[in-house]
Structures are given as C-alpha cells and as structure tokens.
C-alpha cells in the first residue's frame, strides 16, 4: 500500500492520477477515488455476470452438439466461461468489501435487475450454427474489447483479463472450426450458417456499445478512458471488429445483411447501417427475447439450491 496518510483529498487524488499516468498498477488495498471504485465495480461485475449468463445460451447446445469432439469442445468452453465469471466476481468482491457488500449482493443485484448483462446473451439461439457463431464472432468481439483493457490501471483486473484473453482465443478457434465445417458442408448447413449471420449481425454491432452517450443517454466509456482502464472508444473497437471479420465472412462466401456496408478508402473508416439503438436499450434493460427466461432460470436454480448453500454453512 502506498502511504497516503496526512494528505488532503485532492493531494491523494493527484498522487493517484500521477500513478496511473506513470503506468503504475493500482492494487486492491490502495487508496482510490470513489468514482474509480464505482466505475470498476460496475464494469467488472457486469463483465463477470455476463460470462455467467453467457454460459446459458451455449449450454443449450451442449447435449445436442453433433459428435463426441464437438460435445467435448463446447463443454470445455462453457466451463471456461463459468471460470471467467468466477475469476471476475472474485475481483469485484474485493472491490466491494469496503462497502460491506459480497457475492450474494451481486447475485441479488442480478435478480433484482440492477446489474445488467451483455446484449448478446439476451438473444435466442435457434440452431447449432448459432453455437458456432457465438464462439467465432461473439468471442471474437470479446477478444477485441478485452485486449483493449489488458493494460488496465487496476492490476487485479488486468491480470484476470490476461488469462481470460488467452482462453478466449481458444474459444474463437473452437467457434471457427464449427463455422468452417458448416461453410464447407452441404446446402442445409450453409443455409443454417447464413441464417445465423443474418440474425446475429445487429447484436454483434451493438456488442461494442453506442458511439457516445448521446445515443442512449449513458456510457461508461468516458470514465474508463479517463482512468486508463481502457484506451480505445466503442467506435474504434467496432471498426477493428469490422476490419478483422468482414473479409473473413465474405471469404467463406457468406453475405452480411447490410447493403450500405463499405470501407471508405480515404477516411479508412467502415460505413455501416446503425443497429436499432432503441432496441439495444430495451435488450440490456432485460426486455430482450430471452432476457426474462434466462434470468428466471438463474433465479430458480439459485432458489432451488439454497438448501445446499445453507447446509455448507451449517
């Protein structure tokens, strides 16, 4: 812990900001401004709970995965996601401790809908191609947003992300392998794949969040950039995603459901049709197609197993 006794609040703040600017890592027990703690708790608990809620749409395909190898692959992936959730909730718990809050409060926040989870995990999965697409493109998108935070000023988060990103690369490869089999497969498989891309495209664009808070009324990005938790803006991340994946999608002979999509050679910027941001707000407000079903599943499981947690404490 850095010595901060005898300093005024503004001196503490200045010294904290200086540490961040010098590339020093902030640790759990270090002094930090309330805003920093609040922003971290919000960001990391949302990230952690999204991993846990994100296990549900893929879990639906675990028993159905076609082939022993596919069954093994998707089981391993869902396990990893739960593991990431666990890792991130542990980081959040440490941040919450001085506020007298713990993991039970995080779960309660989820159930009472104060804590939100990522837009993609509110969507329905229709076919096996969706399971592949989640691995390939959703995890692909996650790699882009998470590598953007690998240098985060908060040490425990940066270290957790390092491990998470390494595993996400495997997930993207797992997804890509499913996608390649479908793309090289028969007509039914190719149709299944194209259908999945058509349905998931708007959600993938939404994944990175609105360009600015003017779009939806709020955005964490300003505070997270100020405190050097992340470096790039939502839009910069979305542009990276498009640069990486649009050519790959096209190279598989697949189409993207946006006839305005083009790369402007002069500005070096992708032009694309904006997803419906009003819908995005509804989705992350738990009014998406599967929001309440998945929340209910988690609520019911939590309640159903309450006796086990009580027994462990007995």
């Amino acid at each position: 812990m850095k010595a901060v006794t005898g300093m005024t609040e503004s001196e503490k703040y200045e010294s904290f900001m200086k540490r961040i600017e010098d590339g020093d890592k902030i640790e759990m027990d270090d002094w930090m401004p309330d805003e920093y703690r609040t922003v971290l708790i919000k960001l990391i608990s949302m990230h952690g709970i999204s991993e846990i809620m994100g296990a549900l749409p893929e879990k639906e395909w675990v028993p159905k995965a076609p082939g022993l190898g596919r069954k093994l692959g998707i089981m391993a992936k869902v396990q990893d996601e739960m593991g990431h959730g666990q890792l991130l909730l542990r980081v959040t718990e440490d941040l919450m401790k001085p506020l007298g809050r713990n993991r039970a409060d995080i779960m309660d926040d989820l159930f009472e809908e104060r804590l939100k989870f990522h837009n993609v995990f509110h969507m329905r999965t229709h076919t096996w191609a969706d399971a592949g697409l989640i691995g390939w493109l959703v995890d692909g998108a996650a790699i882009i947003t998470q590598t953007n935070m690998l240098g985060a000023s908060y040490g425990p988060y940066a270290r957790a992300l390092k491990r998470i990103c390494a595993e996400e690369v495997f997930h993207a490869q797992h997804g890509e392998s499913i996608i390649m089999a479908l793309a090289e497969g028969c007509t039914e498989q190719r149709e299944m794949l194209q259908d999945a891309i058509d349905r998931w495209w708007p959600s993938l664009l939404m994944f990175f969040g609105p360009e600015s808070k003017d779009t939806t009324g709020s955005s964490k990005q300003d505070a997270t950039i100020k405190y050097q938790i992340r470096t790039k803006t939502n839009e910069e991340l979305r542009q990276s995603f498009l640069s990486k994946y649009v050519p790959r999608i096209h190279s598989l002979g697949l189409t993207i459901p946006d006839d305005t999509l083009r790369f402007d050679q002069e500005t070096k910027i992708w032009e694309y049709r904006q997803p419906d941001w009003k819908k995005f707000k509804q989705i992350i407000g738990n009014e998406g197609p599967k929001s309440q079903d998945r929340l209910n599943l988690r609520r019911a499981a939590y309640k159903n197993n309450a006796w086990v947690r009580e027994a462990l404490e007995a």
Partner: protein
Amino acid sequence: MEKTESGKFEGLTETDQAYLADLLKQLADDDYLLSFRSSEWLGLAPHIEEDVASASISQDMMGHAAMYYGLLGDIYGRDADDLAHFRGPADRRNSILTEKRNGEGEYLDVPKYDWAYHVVRNLYYNMHKKVKLVALKQSSSTPLRDVAAKAAMELYYHELHWRTWFIQLMNSSDDAKARMAAALEKVNGECADLFHLGKYSEDITRKGYIAPASEMKDSFRKEMEKVFDQTDSVFSFPDDQKENGRLGRHTEDLEHALELMSEVYGSVPYAKW
C-alpha cells in the same frame, strides 16, 4: 473366421469380439449418459466454483466415453461418433442409474433438479467405476488395460469430489440429511445393474476381460462402507430391480436423452459436423 479390421484387436474371433463389444458398450454408454446428465446441470450448480468443477468432471467422462467408443469402432470398423449417436435404446448397455433424469423439468425450461440425488448418484457411479477400472487394469485385453489406466488418473479426482460432497451433506443440516436420505433411497432403486456384466457375463469374465461381478461388488461394498462410516447411515446395496440396462432393458428417460443428444447429428444424416 472373420478378424477385426484394426490392429488393436487383431486375432480375436468373432465371438470374442461380441463379448468385448458388449463390455465396451456398457463402459462407453455409462459415461456417455451420465456425462450428459451432469452437463444438464451446467450453469445451475449450487455455486459458481462447483459449476466449474463439475463441468470439468463431465468433460472427463465424455472423454472416457469417446475412448471406449473408439475401441468399439475398431472392433466394428465403424465411426465412434456414429456409435455414440445412432444406436437406439435396445442396443444401449448403460446402467439404469446413469440414464435417469436429474429431477423434474427440462434443462431448457426451468428445471427443478435435485443436488442431493446428483451427489449420491455420482458417488455410487464413480465408486463403481473406480472398482471397475482397477479390474480393467488387469484385463487380458491390452487396449482395455491402456484405456483404463488413462481413465483411472482422472477418476481419482472425480471420486474424491463426490465423496467430499456426500460426507459433508450427510453430516449437515437436518434438511440436508432428509434430502440425502431420500436420494439414497432413490439411488438404491436404480443401481442394482451397475455390476451386472450383461448377457455374456460368464464369457467376459472367463476370458479375463474383467473380474467377476461378485468380486467387484465385494470391493465396492468395502469402499462404500468406509465412506458410510463417516456418516450416521449404513450402506446397503440392492440385489435386483425391474429394469436391467446391461441387458438393454431401459426406462423412458433413456429414449428422451438419446433423442436430444442426436438431434443435430442426425438432422442431416450425410453431413460432416
């Protein structure tokens, strides 16, 4: 006499192949089905740490099933995936204990699964598997010995995991004890065929592929008594039950499980996935 295609079982007569195939189906289908039942719990376990641990165990079990299906495929000259996905209930040799539902409801809906049953079922199954793997490591069949040695390394942790849960819950709150007692009763009605070796049981043991059922049952009893000694309950094991999975006589729960597990694989029969 026709010989197997693969070198692994070279020199086996057709009847020996039939004996071995039946035993392999028992081993493979057991792990396949219980891995599936465990995977239905994914994301719904009592806490997140347990979710990670039991997901890892389900994976290992599916891995063991894949090894056994691989050997079965060597005997039949068929693809392991086809053997896992395309065989109907009558051809399945898993024990009844591995096929039963986790509780009320569908995993895609809002299921009311019973953790006490999950713990008891897994303890019984894994202890039975531990005893079997010890016997298989002495098998006269080299490929079986090799696979058993690999599976046993992981099984050590699985058995430890479920034994820990079992002892903890059996010595816990009154509510937990009552739930565990109910689960024990349920498992007792479903596990009699665990050590049954199927229609070729005498030939299978005469050939030295695995130890006789009675011997394995004795070892199992001793192991389980050691576990029960750490609780207030007394271990008992049923002699018989209505269905016998080792003879292909199953419950409706199996049919439902197999349909789900083969839904995508069988949807376009000629496709590669």
